[in-house]
């Protein structure tokens, strides 16, 4: 928990807190925050501000029926949703996306494997397994890419990324990651669906990435 040097930029933490961020990226943020107390504290500060905004917000009167309905349900038994725990290298939100099962790896060639967790029109998120020492072919992507290291390490133009580190790359970044020697590198990587922008994504990241 001490060696994380690449964090989630503040704007992305705020986009997560406010709910603007799509599910694929939000999974990477939730997984990083699970590993990084510094980002957890920054996120909490944003949530406090969100709470203050809520408290200062204009009210809308509630119907009498609602109060009665809520108070009468307090003693109802509820089925708890399953709570997933961290398992080996995978933080709880990743285990949740895996529904508690080990990843289903599919080969991509040269020993690289992937396991897609979510794929939709607003983006996709996957686990990547890269054998030690392998250089990944330069990959291009349409918009933003967030990569969180869960095991091993990789290096590229942005520096060295070890367990818990997040790389934030946009389409302007030349991206030629090389996995460190030793242990295989396992990452959680989210991208917005390339070439299939809905209006939401470019608007979301325009201020920082000038798409």
């Amino acid at each position, binding site marked *: 928990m001490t060696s994380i040097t690449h964090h989630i930029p*503040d*704007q992305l933490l705020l986009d997560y807190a*406010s709910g603007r961020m799509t599910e694929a990226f939000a999974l990477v943020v939730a997984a990083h925050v699970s590993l990084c107390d510094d980002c957890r504290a920054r996120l909490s500060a944003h949530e406090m501000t969100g709470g203050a905004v809520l408290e200062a917000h204009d009210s809308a009167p509630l119907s009498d029926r609602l109060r009665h309905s809520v108070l009468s349900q307090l003693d109802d038994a509820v089925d708890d949703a399953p709570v997933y725990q961290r398992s080996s290298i995978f933080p709880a939100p990743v285990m949740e996306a895996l529904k508690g099962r080990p990843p289903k790896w599919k080969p991509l060639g040269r020993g690289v494997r992937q396991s897609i967790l979510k794929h939709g029109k607003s983006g996709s998120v996957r686990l990547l397994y890269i054998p030690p020492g392998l250089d990944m072919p330069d990959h291009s992507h349409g918009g933003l890419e967030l990569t969180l290291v869960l095991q091993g390490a990789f290096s590229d133009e942005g520096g060295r990324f070890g367990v818990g580190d997040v790389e934030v790359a946009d389409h302007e970044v030349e991206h030629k990651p090389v996995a460190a020697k030793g242990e295989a590198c396992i990452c959680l990587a989210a991208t917005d669906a390339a070439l299939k922008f809905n209006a939401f994504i470019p608007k979301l990241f325009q201020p920082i990435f000038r798409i």
Partner: protein
Amino acid sequence: MLAVRDKRDKRAFAALFDHFGPRLKGVAMRSGLSSGQAEDMVQDVMLSLWRKAHLFDPTRAQVSSWLYQIARNRQIDILRKENRPMPEALKAESEVTEESTSEALGLEQEVGALKAALAKLKPAQREMVEKAYLGELSHTDIEAETGLPLGTIKSRIRLGLEKLRHELDGIRKP
């Protein structure tokens, strides 16, 4: 909130409902929900507060920040049919000690300062903060532009987390 958590006090819960319910509805309607949908959301959020109260830790959260989170989750679910992955929950310190009480009090004071700063913002800045936190616009640096004291709150929570990790380590390595 501690009465709700520790004593399952329904009257205390009703007071939280009366205070926050109408505000939650106001925020929900602002995002385009009908009055009926907004009330369904208020119901889900407030019941969730009651059912998850055991996870509440006043040294790291406030009732309002907790409700904010839960409400954002519900709203994403209703408006976008998406789930929002949440970070691993940390164990709440259930024992109320003198130290944890003073930590919680310290955080409350900092949040008080934040609320005061929010209330003093010029209307345009305040609107920007509202829009950013209610997901209507993306923003780069709220703290630098508005002077809201987010850094002090972050530092306090950070210290609390360090202490918690320290205690957990102590339990793991007897």
